[in-house]
């Protein structure tokens, strides 16, 4: 019924009292929002709880949504804020210190291998539980300002402009943070020496 309608039209319908329109929005964004929160706070159960809060907050505040803005950036902004609240409250926070060295699990394929050597693993091997855990562990260890950029741009596939809207900073800041985040990530998986060696070789 609402399949082809843009998000903003659905918001307008939902505001007039049609719950079906909001359910459609929920179905469209439930996975991206859960994944975003999950990558931000590193706990799936907690991510689902926060995601429910995100959708309820969105539903209760539909009347203040600016129809001239994009719904997805608005929803991700709510998700980002609630994720940060959750992390700040330490209510759901995991026992991983930001300063603590990461103890990487040694699975059949490591993140270092799949990033440094594209031929080391087929595409299917990337979607393994081990790699996902390893990536998440590294994300958890990164400062929030880098984590949110990586999650929004690299994992959720947002453009820098959209990410800038969600985070509330300039596109240039996103670009800078992204570069720094990648450098930090590489360092954490032990690829910084490869980089430097490669640079020297060049």
């Amino acid at each position, binding site marked *: 019924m609402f399949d082809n309608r843009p998000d903003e039209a659905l918001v307008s319908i939902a*505001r007039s*009292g049609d*719950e079906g329109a*909001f*359910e459609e929005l*929920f179905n469209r964004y*439930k*996975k991206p929002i*859960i*994944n975003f929160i*999950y990558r931000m706070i590193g706990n*799936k159960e907690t*991510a*689902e*709880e926060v*995601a*429910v809060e995100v*959708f*309820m907050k969105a*539903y*209760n505040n539909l*009347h*203040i949504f*600016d*129809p*001239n803005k994009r719904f997805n950036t608005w929803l991700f902004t709510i998700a980002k804020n609630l994720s940060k609240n959750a992390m700040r409250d330490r209510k759901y926070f995991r026992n991983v210190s930001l300063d603590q060295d990461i103890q990487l699990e040694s699975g059949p394929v490591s*993140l270092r291998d*799949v*990033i*440094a050597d*594209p031929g080391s693993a087929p*595409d299917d091997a*990337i*979607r*393994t*539980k081990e*790699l*996902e855990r390893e*990536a998440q562990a590294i994300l958890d260890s990164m400062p929030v300002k880098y984590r949110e950029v*990586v999650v929004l741009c*690299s*994992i959720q*596939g947002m453009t820098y402009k959209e990410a800038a809207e969600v985070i509330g900073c300039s596109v240039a800041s996103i670009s800078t943070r992204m570069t720094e985040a*990648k450098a930090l*990530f*590489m360092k954490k998986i032990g*690829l910084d020496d*490869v*980089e430097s060696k*490669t*640079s020297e070789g*060049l």
Partner: protein
Amino acid sequence: MKQELSARFDYIMANLRQAEPSPSFEHNFASRFSEAVARRQMEPLPARVFGKIDHFIRDLGMILSYRRRMLARVTASFLITVSAGAYIYSSQPSCPYLMSKSGDIRIIGGNGSIYGKGAYPDKLIVGDVIYVDPSGQLDLGIPDRYIIRMKGASKLRVASLTPRIGKGMAEFELIEGNVLVNVEDGFKGSRFTINTDSATATALGTKFSVDARSKGKALTGIRVLEGKVVVKSRHHPRGMALARQVVTVDAGQKTEVVPDGIPSSPQRMMEDEWDELDELYGLGKKPHVMLLIKNTPGRAKELLGPCPIIISDERPRQIPRKVDRAMLRIGQAVQDNDRSKHLESIRMLESIVKEEPNPKYNVQFLLYIGSYYEYLSLHEEAIKVFEGVVKDYPDSPLASIGACAIGIIYDEKLGDRDRAEKAYRAILSRYPNSLEAIWAEERLGIKKESN
């Protein structure tokens, strides 16, 4: 390599396992959502209505604020564009150009270029020096603003030109020779100045001549034909601290300034000086359009003859070129004795008055058109035209001719004595001092009482 790693990083991150929502998530949301919906529906009706009104106002506010922002942006862009255009346009000086010329003209450009022998610049710029051969004549200027007629053996330099909008200024330096200046209505409020070695003449909306003699005595003579001119010594006279350096010269007056001297008191021009100017500048060609009729009480009758019309070929030409074509057509119509060509000629004349009206020739053309209709025995049409003259140009010195022509047509062509009398009486009441009043009195049988 760094870029490859970066791209590989993005690829790996984008393809990480996605967390699938658990059934409990769906269940939690469904229960929370139904609670929220129920809460909303449980709201009392007034609260819901006010809520909807509130939402509507918020939406409207957002839309309006968006529109206001858009409007502000569009308005700002428009204003910036217009201002920039106006600034660029107004910062361009109003450059005069050559209008008509005869004889040998040479121009040494302010940028060092030399023009002559048929190759001239489109416009004159500051610094250009224009030489007119002793046998030549040149008109330069900007139509509707000012025209300078340079006579033979004159040398003029463009000293300063200011922007097009606002209080403009045009300043020329007459190095030698004679110029006649006609500052027109389009330059009102702006400053027009001619400098010579000894004097500065500033026009106050006027027509004047400046004569800077280079041979013999270096003396500047200024003669004013219309309006006023302020004349000032170019240099402060020595030993004459209290001398009056500035004089205002009215129409029909003249003044002279010697180098390092003060302007002489304005004096009335003698008849021979008018004649001299007349001859020098061809002023006798006015008016531009003239009906060739004698100045007698019977001039309206003469008009219906029909009378010939004379159109001045004075330069710069202010009569539309269409007139030439109309006159040519009239000549052909007379030659062929072709009524349709006559009517076509009339239409051409009427279109000139309608499309390019000018108080200098409107009445003359209309009277001529009226007489032309009468020539073709189109009496009603002729009367209509003459009535139009009386109605639209009641203060013209030629309006009484039109009024009288109406009476004559009723009297002599249509045999309508009553209307003729009415027309004649109208002349006596509206134009009692006109020549036509004498004609009307005669026709009405009124004897003027002698004093």
